[in-house]
Each structure stands twice: as structure tokens, then as C-alpha cells.
């Protein structure tokens, strides 16, 4: 295999581009595709203060690295989820990445700062772990961005993530979610804008980027995510991609170009809800008295009565 750009020895093939790349030109491709996405969807201004949602995994560290390489002022924000060894390892990778590059990383910990963790809290609140995790992270990222005066939150969502979410939304015709599935969510009442600059890169490419940049990312998969639908959709899409290179890209980008607008008028109507007001507990903007995160915290931390002794199989003793 030879690099399409320089004809030197290639290290990776990108079938949907029908091209191979050496290390140097693959890294340039990743930066160029990220810059193209930022420009295509007007994600960031040059002087924006950016807060990157960092997990210690390949996507968040890659997007942080690329934004820094592209000259953006980007700090990181990490949330400890309390998922045993997985969380300890993910924090280690995030902290080490920032320290090695002299970058600023803010951290928050669910157990330390909010009294619960994802495994126990999601069980107590009767929510799927991924749902409780997503809700918590979205709330805390928003809060951290407001507190720190950041203009934008950046996440490491890649093309595989977006195509898988789109597949799930289409399979179940979640039209309200389809209306909101955009690479950029503009700022609105109390919420900073949210951007996904990696939407033009697959996760194979973000992983390859990290390996070539010698970024030590967390390889282990979250134990709570095993068997979730998101992973099943990704596997199905990769089966399609095997015989039809570029299918994932077309699925997502043609949705944006040709179909997304059709769901948006309905979205605007559904979004014309009453003005948000501060959450009575934390002050975050919400449509209810209490925001979803504070409701989760309340359910996850409320005392649960403990039954003592054996309650099954105990024989009644008649007097």
C-alpha cells in the first residue's frame, strides 16, 4: 500500500475515500477533516473558549489534541462516574494526557461531589446505567461551562456514534430526537453551544490518530455499556459498510442535507415550551421545578430501607 499523497509506505487504508495514507498524511487528513467539520457547521469561532468533555478514551483525547493543534483554546473537563477500576483508569489517562501537554483539566466526581455513583445510583433511580451516565455528564458539562465562562462544549462523538444514534432514532421514529441530531447544537437559554468536530471521522480513524500520535488512551470498554443497543447498531452499520464503503458517511450526511430539515419545524414547535427557569435545587435552567439531574440525585441518594434477617422460607410458628 502506498500513500495517496506522497507515495511513501502507507500505514492505513480508508476504504470510503478509496485511499491509503502514510502516518504523516493520515494525521493531516484527521486535522483537515476536523477543520472542515468546524467550518461546514460553523461550530467554533477562532477566539471561542472551548471546554472538551474528556473521558480518557480515544475520541475525547483525539478531539482535544486536534483542537489544540488547530490553535483553539481548549480546556478539558472530566467526570468521575464511580465505575470501579474503569473510572480509576479513565481518570488516570485523562489526567496524564493533560499533564504531559500542559493543558488545563477540570475534574468532578459523582460520588465525592454528589453522593452517588453510576452503578448504585442508576439502580436506585431505576434508570439504565447509560441513561443515568449521559444525563449526569450533560448536566455537569453544561454547569462547568457556565461556571467557567466557556463559549462551547466539545464532545468526541464521531461518525460511527452519529450514524448509530441516527439508526436508532429512525428505527423507532423518534422524530423529536431526529430534529435535534445535529453536529452543532446552538446555545439557548442558559445552555452553551455544543459541537461535535469529529463527525467526519470514524472511530477506527480516531483510534489510529491516537496510536500514531502516541496518545495513551483508555482501551478498556465501559463494563456498564456491554450489550447496549448503541453497540448493536454500530455492528450492524459496520456489516453494511463492509460491502458498501462510505455507507455510514452517506447515511448521516445525507440525512443532514436532505432529511433533517423535515423534522425541524416540529422540533421548533415542541421547543416553544415555556421559558426555562432556574432549578430550585441547583439553579440550572430547567422547564420543571427541579432539573432532571437533581431529580436523579434525589432518587439515587435517598435512604432505602434495609430488611434484616431472612424473609423467604421462614416458617410461621403458630402459638
Amino acid at each position, binding site marked *: *500500500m502506498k500513500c495517496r499523497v506522497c507515495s511513501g509506505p502507507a500505514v492505513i487504508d480508508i476504504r470510503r475515500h478509496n485511499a491509503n495514507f502514510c502516518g504523516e498524511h493520515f494525521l493531516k487528513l484527521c486535522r483537515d477533516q476536523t477543520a472542515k467539520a468546524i467550518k461546514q457547521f460553523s461550530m467554533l469561532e477562532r477566539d471561542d473558549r472551548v471546554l472538551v468533555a474528556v473521558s480518557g478514551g*480515544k475520541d475525547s483525547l483525539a478531539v482535544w489534541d486536534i483542537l489544540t493543534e488547530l490553535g483553539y483554546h481548549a480546556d478539558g473537563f472530566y467526570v468521575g462516574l464511580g465505575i470501579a477500576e474503569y473510572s480509576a483508569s479513565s481518570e488516570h489517562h485523562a489526567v496524564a494526557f493533560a499533564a504531559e501537554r500542559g493543558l488545563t483539566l477540570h475534574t468532578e466526581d459523582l460520588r465525592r461531589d454528589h453522593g452517588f455513583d453510576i452503578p448504585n445510583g442508576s439502580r436506585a433511580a431505576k434508570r439504565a446505567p447509560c441513561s443515568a451516565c449521559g444525563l449526569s455528564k450533560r448536566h455537569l458539562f453544561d454547569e462547568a461551562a457556565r461556571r467557567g465562562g466557556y463559549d462551547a462544549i466539545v464532545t468526541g*462523538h464521531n461518525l*460511527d456514534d452519529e450514524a448509530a444514534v441516527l439508526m436508532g432514532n429512525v428505527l423507532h421514529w423518534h422524530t423529536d430526537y431526529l430534529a435535534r441530531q445535529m453536529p452543532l447544537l446552538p446555545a439557548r437559554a442558559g445552555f452553551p453551544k455544543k459541537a461535535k468536530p469529529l463527525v467526519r471521522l470514524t472511530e*477506527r480513524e*480516531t*483510534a489510529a490518530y491516537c*496510536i500514531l500520535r502516541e496518545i495513551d488512551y483508555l482501551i*478498556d470498554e*465501559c463494563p456498564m455499556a456491554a450489550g447496549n443497543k448503541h453497540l448493536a447498531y454500530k455492528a450492524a452499520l459496520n456489516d453494511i459498510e463492509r460491502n458498501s464503503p462510505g455507507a455510514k458517511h452517506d447515511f448521516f450526511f445525507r440525512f443532514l442535507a436532505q432529511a433533517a430539515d423535515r423534522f425541524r419545524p416540529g422540533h421548533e414547535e415542541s421547543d416553544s415550551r415555556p421559558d426555562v427557569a432556574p432549578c430550585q435545587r441547583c439553579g440550572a435552567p430547567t422547564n420543571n421545578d427541579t432539573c432532571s439531574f437533581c431529580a436523579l440525585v434525589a432518587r439515587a441518594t435517598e435512604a432505602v430501607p434495609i430488611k434484616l434477617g431472612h424473609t423467604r422460607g421462614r416458617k410461621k410458628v403458630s402459638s
Partner: protein
Amino acid sequence: MKVVLRNPTRELEFDGPLEVSVLLQRLDLHREAHLVIEDGTLVPNDKVLGNDAVVEVRSVISGGSP
């Protein structure tokens, strides 16, 4: 050759020489979802791995809250 896989971590032995793309086929792994790494760097699909090679086959699929 020695092939290291993750999640869970395990090692398999294969006879070389063997092309990377053939190795992935034998492991029944999707090339869109995996990278092959040798000595810390990427190995292209057409590289022939020798009998004494040590490579890692790394899944790149991650999932959780989108």
C-alpha cells in the same frame, strides 16, 4: 506468531507468514472495527507478518451514553 487481543485480554498463536487482512479474516474480525499494531505503530492490511511477529489486534468500537 503471537496475537494479543483485548476485552478480555488473551493471546493466540498463528503460523506465519500471514497477511494482516487474512489474520483478521481468520479471527472473524471486521477490518472497519479493528486495527493491528506492531511495535507501537499501525500495520497496513497488506503487510505479511512473519512467524516471530508479535501483534495486537485492537477493537476500536466504543459505546455507552452517546
